[in-house]
C-alpha cells in the first residue's frame, strides 16, 4: 500500500478500510471522547469486516455499534460506558447475553491501557506502572503481571504491550503527503498510531500546508499508511475547531441501544443504507 516514497496514500474511506482492515484483525479506533473515528467504524460495518478484536480505552458508542452489528469477538478496554449518559447497552447485551455473539473481554484500568499503548509505541514488550494492586482486575487477565524493581525491590505492575494490526484515528488536517495534525484533547492517539502495523487517519480537510497549531500533535506521513478525507467523520464525537460534541446524540443513543430491534433498524437506516465514504 505504501508508495516508494513511504508517504501515506490519500484514499477514499471505502478503499482505505478495504485495504487496511481485514477479518480477524486487531483494530484500535482511538480518540478520548474527542476525535472518535465514527465514519470509519460505519464503513467497517458496511463492509461487514468481522471477527475483530477491538482495542479502545473507552469503547463508547462507536464500539457499541460495532459490537451490536456482530463484528466483534473480543474487546480490550478499560471503561465501557456512554460518557455522561450511562450504560452501553449493546456491549452489555453481548457480555450478559451473548447477543448477537459472545464477547470475550480483556479488561484493564485506564492507566494500564495507556501504558500498554506506550509499550507498543516504544517497541517494548511491556510497561511498568504502579497499579492494579489489591484489585480483582489482575486476576482476570493474562496481560497484567508483576516485575520487581532491581534497585528498590518494590513489586510493580507490568502490562503487556498492545500492537494493533491497524489503528484508526480521526484528525483535523492532513497535507497531500499524508502528514497529519490533530489538536485539542489528543488522548492516546499518538501512542495508538505508533503502536500499530498500519495506520488509517480520517481527516476533516486536506490542506496545502500544515500550520503548526498550539497543542498540535503531528504524525509524519511516513508513519501513516492511508489518509481519507471525511469531513464530520467524528460525529457524534467532534473535531475541535470544526464541530462540537453532539451531546444530544449521545443521550438519544441510550433508548436506541436498549432495544435490539431499534438498534438493528438504526444501523440499517443510518449506516448500511446510507451514503458510503466521502470522496477525497
Amino acid at each position, binding site marked *: 500500500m505504501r508508495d516508494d516514497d513511504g508517504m501515506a496514500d490519500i484514499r477514499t474511506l471505502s478503499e482505505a478500510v478495504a485495504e487496511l482492515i481485514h477479518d480477524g484483525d486487531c483494530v484500535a479506533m482511538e480518540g*478520548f*471522547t*474527542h476525535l472518535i473515528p465514527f465514519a470509519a467504524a460505519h464503513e467497517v460495518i458496511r463492509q461487514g469486516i468481522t471477527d475483530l478484536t477491538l482495542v479502545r*480505552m*473507552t469503547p463508547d458508542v462507536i464500539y457499541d455499534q460495532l459490537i451490536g452489528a456482530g463484528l466483534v469477538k473480543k474487546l480490550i*478496554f*478499560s*471503561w*465501557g*460506558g456512554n*460518557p*455522561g*449518559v450511562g*450504560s*452501553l447497552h449493546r*456491549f*452489555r447485551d453481548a*457480555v*450478559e*447475553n451473548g447477543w448477537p455473539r459472545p464477547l470475550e473481554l480483556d*479488561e*484493564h*484500568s*485506564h*492507566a494500564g491501557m*495507556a*501504558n500498554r*499503548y*506506550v509499550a507498543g509505541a516504544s517497541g517494548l514488550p511491556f510497561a511498568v*506502572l*504502579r*497499579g*492494579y*494492586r*489489591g*484489585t*480483582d*482486575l489482575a486476576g482476570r487477565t493474562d496481560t497484567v503481571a508483576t516485575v520487581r524493581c532491581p534497585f528498590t525491590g*518494590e*513489586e510493580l505492575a507490568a502490562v503487556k504491550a498492545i500492537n494493533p494490526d491497524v489503528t484508526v484515528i480521526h484528525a483535523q488536517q492532513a497535507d497531500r503527503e499524508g502528514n497529519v495534525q490533530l489538536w*485539542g*484533547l*489528543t*488522548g*492516546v492517539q*499518538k*501512542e495508538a498510531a505508533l503502536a500499530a502495523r498500519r495506520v488509517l487517519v480520517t481527516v476533516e480537510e486536506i490542506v496545502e500546508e500544515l500550520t503548526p497549531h498550539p*497543542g498540535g500533535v503531528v504524525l509524519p506521513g511516513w508513519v501513516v499508511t492511508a489518509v481519507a478525507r471525511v469531513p464530520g467523520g467524528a460525529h457524534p464525537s*467532534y473535531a*475541535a475547531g470544526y464541530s*462540537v*460534541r453532539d*451531546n444530544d446524540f*449521545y443521550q438519544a443513543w441510550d433508548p436506541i441501544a436498549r432495544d435490539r430491534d431499534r438498534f438493528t433498524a438504526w444501523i440499517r437506516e443510518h449506516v448500511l443504507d446510507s451514503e458510503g465514504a466521502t470522496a477525497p
Partner: protein
Amino acid sequence: MSDGTMSGGTMSDWTSDELMTVNAARALAGARSCFVGIGLPSAAANLARRTIRPDLVLIYESGAVGAKPARLPLSIGDGELADTADAVVSVPEMFNYWLQAGRIDVGFLGAAQVDRFANINTTLVDRGQDRPPGRLPGAGGAPEIAANCGEVLIVLRHSTRNFVDRLDFVTSVGHGTGRGDRERLGLRGRGPVAVITDLGVMRPDPQTAELVLTDLHPGVTVDQARAATGWPLKTADHVAVTAPPTDAELAALRTLKAA
C-alpha cells in the same frame, strides 16, 4: 426522601442530590488539585471552584489540567475542558506524570458499590444464580486514582444496593481489609477520607478504617442511615449535623447546571 425536594433552614428548598453535591464541594475546602470523574464529582468540584475554593485545580483524565468550564461538561472530553485548561497533556502523561507521581491532592470518585472499608466496585454486580452478572462500565481511571491521589472522596446515593456488606468485584481499593492494608499493598495515598451521601457523611475510623457515620444532613436520622447501609453501620461518638446549603451554594450550583 431520595431525589425528593426538602425544606431547610433557609428560604430555599433543595433536592437530596443538591444536598449531596453541596456537601461534596465543601469537602474540597483544603484541596489544591482534584482529579475529577464525570457526574456528581464533576458537579461538586466545579461548585467548589465557584464557592469555597476558587483556586482549585480541576484535572480531567482526558488530559485537561486546570480546566475552568463555564458549564458542567457532559463528558470528560468536552471541548471546553481543553479550551479553558492551563495545560493539555496526553492521556499516558496524565496517568504517569500527574496521577501516578502523586501530584494530585484529591481524587473524587463515584461508585456502584462501596463496602465498609470504602473499597469500590464499578465492574459488575451479581444478580443471582440464574442470571449472568450485570455488567457495569468497569475501572476507568479509578483504581489508580484511588491508589495515588493524596486522598479520596467518594460521593454516592445512600442505599443498601450501593453500600453493601461484600463487593461483587473489587475494582478500586479503599482501605482493603482494614487499617494498615494500604501500606501493605504499597498504595501511596491516604485513601478514602469521606463518603458523602444524600443522607450524611461516613468517614473511616482512625483505628480500624471502617466507615462510621460522622455527619447527618439536616432532618435525617441515624436509623435512616443504618437502614440504607448494607452492614451494621457504626456511628461516631458525636454525630454532627451538616449545615444546610446556603443560598449562595444553591445559586451557584443551579447556575452551573443551567448553563
